């Protein structure tokens, strides 16, 4: 689902109950992360749930975009991941670094889910994606002749 469609649907929901059900549905529809990617290396530790995350630069695109896949053992967290992935979809490293995820989650009333003290893995996931984007950026700068 594209981010604007997602937001349009989400903002019609009247209370947390409906929003929660919506996130659960998003979570169920999240494209599966291949089983072999559920490794310790890809895990983002949370206190309450776990998130697995892979990031790669899609060089077939011009300019290259960041391809992100993720999964969690908790359905609601998977729903929140779906929101993140929609926000980051088909974005270049520069665009990713410029994306205001906090603002988006605040707009959705989900900012508490992103706090570092919540430790559901989501905050760590954003950190990891951003640092991947920053690394890709500095690598591409260096390779420019």
């Amino acid at each position: 689902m594209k981010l604007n469609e997602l937001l349009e649907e989400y903002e019609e929901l009247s209370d947390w109950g409906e929003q929660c059900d919506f996130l659960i549905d998003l979570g169920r529809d999240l494209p599966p992360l291949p089983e072999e990617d559920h490794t310790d290396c890809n895990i983002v530790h949370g206190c309450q749930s776990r998130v697995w995350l892979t990031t790669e630069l899609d060089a077939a695109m011009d300019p290259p975009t960041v391809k992100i896949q993720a999964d969690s053992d908790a359905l609601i967290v998977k729903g929140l991941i779906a929101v993140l992935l929609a926000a980051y979809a088909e974005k270049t490293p520069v665009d990713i670094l410029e994306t205001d995820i906090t603002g988006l989650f605040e707009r959705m009333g989900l900012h508490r889910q992103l706090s570092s003290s919540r430790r559901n893995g989501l905050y760590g996931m954003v950190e990891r994606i951003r640092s991947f984007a920053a690394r890709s950026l500095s690598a591409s700068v260096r390779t420019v002749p």
Partner: protein
Amino acid sequence: MSEVRAQDQAAYDAHAVRAEFPVLMQSLEKGLRPVYLDSGASAQKPRAVIAKEREVEEQYFANAYRGRYSFGARIDDELEGARTKIAEFLNAASSSQIVFTPGATAGLNMVAFGWGRRFVQAGDEILTTLMEHHANLVPWQQLARERQAILRFIPLTSDGRLDSERLGEVLNERTKIVAVCGMSNVLGTVNPIAELVRRAHQFGACVVVDGAQSVPHLTTDVQQTPMDFLCFSGHKLYGPTGVGVIYGRSERLEEMDPILFGGHMIERVWPDHSTWAAPPARFEAGTLPIVQAIALGAAIDWIRQHGLDRIHRHEQSLLRDLTTRMQSLPGMTIYGPDTPHKGAIVSFRIAGLHPEDLAAMLDRRAVFTRHGHHCTMPLHDLLGVSATTRVSLGAYNTTEDLDALLEAVQFAFQKLRPTQRA
């Protein structure tokens, strides 16, 4: 015997007790009543405790042990009164054995680095368990690292009790400290502290009990069970946050070093050195959480008025009922021993439902539980799960609370089970 018990239970009116807790008497969104099942994290406060905090703040607040004016004198009396109540509650021989701390975690750290650092040498052993809260594990890890001591663990049985029969494998003349919880914050296991104390003392080891979970639920008698140190917090005991207690045997407190230095804890200060006041003042540097400590005295009064034994029996009765009802749910795993060996905590997982999702669904029904590793990562590693859901009971819980929990679990099944895709 059973008649006596039935009478006692009839006399305990959980609804009347609940009505003493303003926070529980609210009506939430959609007319839901709060079902508070997280007393193991922190208990709610009865009106008497809230009123006491208010009384102190509004009528006679001053710093303690400093002012000769009337407010200061009243504060001193109230604070020492609270200390005496705590001593009586634990059956301590003297109120000078009661040290106010910021909480159980602070207390355990103070014992580890005040007593442990002084007496634990390289090669000595510190004996603990894998069911400890991080607050009663990490300080000992740190101390062991600092002193080049060895951390050892009392083996657990498959149902999560200390294996007394194997205690001899790990307890010996090198054991300097035995640090164990009175009751597990995850499994609910009630540990055989009396036996541990007896056997540890045969080797001259110092027994430190983390009473954060046990003190609010089980009668603690520090003379009948002569543990060396006992640490607990006020906020799990229907008192305020920010205050806790170290009980210490007088000779142990006497030989313990302070780890916080400053006002009130000194006897005499010279430009280049100082001497210390006698316990408990030696361990109470700086301004105490005065209001909270006084209100903790009110919480003890409240508990004694209702009777900790009666509260305990009520909680155990709910626990048995809850356990039976939950065991009948499909995919249910309850961690820990059977009810006779545990206090009012049920940690569980339901196959196919992640604890975080479950907690969110229960919250939508105003059923407040805890989920996660409950600050016991090594225990969860041992159980082979990353997280559990925990229900912990208190004096104010009722059968209706259990009904609400079970109803909310059904709601979670409907919402989260794969077949229910809308």
